């Protein structure tokens, strides 16, 4: 009887020190390995393949992958980005390919990105704009950061004067290095 009474009166105390040690070790691990993720954004777009844009003319067939001119015969606004050997943007020009035309028509050289922005706004923003797609022909050496500046401008453009009507698609084509645009 006396034993039972003694047991009942005992208080069981957990030793929290060991658990605290372990918790501190876990905390130290998480603090040391914690690296906040960099703030990254992205430019999203729908990019159809460029090769079906070729017009069946001049010995080329539509859908031919190896054509150097994937934008013939469409209401396409073309942007040519020529790269310098060090990968920077050397020359930036805007042109169009209209139905019935076999040659690229260079509308103008944009001396800078702001000029390109204004030109695109002028050409795409009209309610009766003939353009329904944009193709960027890019020099092989052009650096990614230079290309992103142009893509940023293109993706912000609205078509036909309606700000909700964004470009349905954008195509990137590798340009022949050293060849003048439109040839």
């Amino acid at each position: 009887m006396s034993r039972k009474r003694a047991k009942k009166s005992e208080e069981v105390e957990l030793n929290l020190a060991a658990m605290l040690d372990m918790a501190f070790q876990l905390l130290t691990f998480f603090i040391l390995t914690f690296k906040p993720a960099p703030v990254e954004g992205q430019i999203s777009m729908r990019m159809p393949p460029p090769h079906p844009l070729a017009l069946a003319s001049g010995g080329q067939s539509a859908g031919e992958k190896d054509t150097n001119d994937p934008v013939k015969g469409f209401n396409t606004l073309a942007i040519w980005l020529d790269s310098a050997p060090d990968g920077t943007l050397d020359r930036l020009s805007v042109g169009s390919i209209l139905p019935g035309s076999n040659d690229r028509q260079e509308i103008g050289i944009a001396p800078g990105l702001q000029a390109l922005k204004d030109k695109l706004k002028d050409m795409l923003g009209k309610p009766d704009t003939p353009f329904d797609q944009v193709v960027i022909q890019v020099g092989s050496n052009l650096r990614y950061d230079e290309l992103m500046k142009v893509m940023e401008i293109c993706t912000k453009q609205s078509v036909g004067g309606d700000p909700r009507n964004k470009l349905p698609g954008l195509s990137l084509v590798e340009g022949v290095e050293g060849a003048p645009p439109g040839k």
Partner: protein
Amino acid sequence: MSGSLSNKSSAEPNLTPILDMVFQLITFFMLVTNFKNNLIDKNMELPVVGTARSVDPGEMLQLLVNINAKHEYTVGSRVIAKEDFGPWIKQTAAQSRMTERRLERIKEDTDDLTTEIIVRADKSTSFRDLNVVVRAMQDEGFRRFSFRAMEKAKG
């Protein structure tokens, strides 16, 4: 006499509050640790684009491809050699197609995939290297592309 009594008594601090606090801190760090960061190749410097939108993956299937400053293609921690890149994309596209059909994201009669390709490229990457990825992905039916950039410059 009373002084001798106080010497014998032992002071035991109550560890429960500090344990509670430590567990809360552990929970916080566990929640904010982003294990998806392991997919990101950190040995690269992304271009800075002010209007790049924050990433909201939603329920979209995504595939992340890195092109680092050494012009290597990496997926997760795996480096894919240039000659192996084509076969890898074919295999990945086949897997994506199966997954999307199982999830009923695409119809049987279409080749277009809805999986989003996320391209993270070092800012010095040439368009030639970037286009290898884009063209190969387009040829396999991928249509949605996202190009990652920093919203603001570091520091």
